[in-house]
């Protein structure tokens, strides 16, 4: 769950307006379906967190980074990818 919260933090930093209510929805959804399947998690988080089609690209990039290797991804998101979203 901590992991999802971190991911939401990264989405916010990248410019997506994720509200607390939406974060809660995402957590509830993940609780129902789990994080085991990568494809399923990607769908679940997109359904609950990404409300504008324009944000889909950023979301997918971040998701791939984050779910590839957690620790590594976090630094690379912050350093290399952040400026291009602003």
């Amino acid at each position, binding site marked *: 769950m901590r992991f999802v919260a971190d991911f939401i933090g990264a989405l916010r930093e990248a410019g997506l*307006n994720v*509200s607390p*209510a*939406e974060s809660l*929805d995402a957590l*509830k*959804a993940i609780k*129902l*379906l789990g994080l085991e399947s990568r*494809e*399923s998690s990607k*769908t*679940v988080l*997109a*359904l*609950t967190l*990404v*409300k*504008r*089609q324009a944000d*889909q690209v950023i979301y997918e990039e971040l998701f791939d980074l984050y779910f590839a290797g957690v620790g590594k991804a976090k630094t690379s998101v912050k350093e290399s990818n952040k400026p291009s979203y602003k």
Partner: protein
Amino acid sequence: MIIKHQEKIASPEIIQSRYEDLGYICSHSVATAIYLACHLQKPILIEGPPGVGKTELAKVTATYLNAPLIRMQCYEGLDESKALYEWKYGKQLLYTQVLKEQLGDVLRGARGLDESIARLHDFGDIFYSQDFLEPRPLLQALQSEDGAVLLIDEIDKADQEFEAFLLELLSDYQVSIPEIGTVKAISTPIVMLTSNNTRELGDALKRRCLHLYIPFPDAALESRILATQVEGLESQLREQIVALIGKLRDMPLKKSPAVSETIDWARALLLLNVEELDSHWVKETLNLLLKFQDDIELVEPEIAALLKSLR
């Protein structure tokens, strides 16, 4: 909504395969959206190009859950009286007539104006009550005993005011009627909103919904859709149709052919006994796929080349 058969919504995979049995081929994300809508009791906002099966999804969901489908088509100028409720004016008028005749009995023996008014108050006021309420789609959905699937179709066509009016319904499943008070859902309906993106919807509305984007299907999915929707279509022709449609969608058209148009086209080709796509038949039937003259003029000279690239 009380879903009588919980096993029906036990997992997205079950939903996906059962929908397929009902003739609706959907991707995993569509099935997941339905699953979450049922379990989290949240509305789904479905976006995507016209003709990818957004409305159809609501219909098949109603069939699958054995719930009535209540549909509200949005348009510019749609207001509460069309969407939520109206008073039955005719009956209200009749009621005042009846009241007038009874008035003598009620007021007989009353002394002074004060006592008359007090008696009138005691008589009870049903002028604005459930009896004279004509429920429109939104209220019908809330009052449906066993729950319902509420389809709010093409919400982007309605005004922003109407969108704001929907917020209470979408987050709390209740509406406020000034004369009566708050009406809560007897059984939470499953709400689906569709949008063709003719305008950007408000953030407040989006925050309350799960957001599902249905794109044009990929070739494999579209081929499966055709196989279930068009009986008797040879697989060779089917693959050709799907491939050509894919190419057309890559072209800079005003309106790309949608899944519904692919199905219409395949049915037409089947009726015409076409066994293999050739320039002649494609040209003759192009107007089934493309709805703008500009698009037809753009594609027509390319047909031969397009067909060649399929082989």
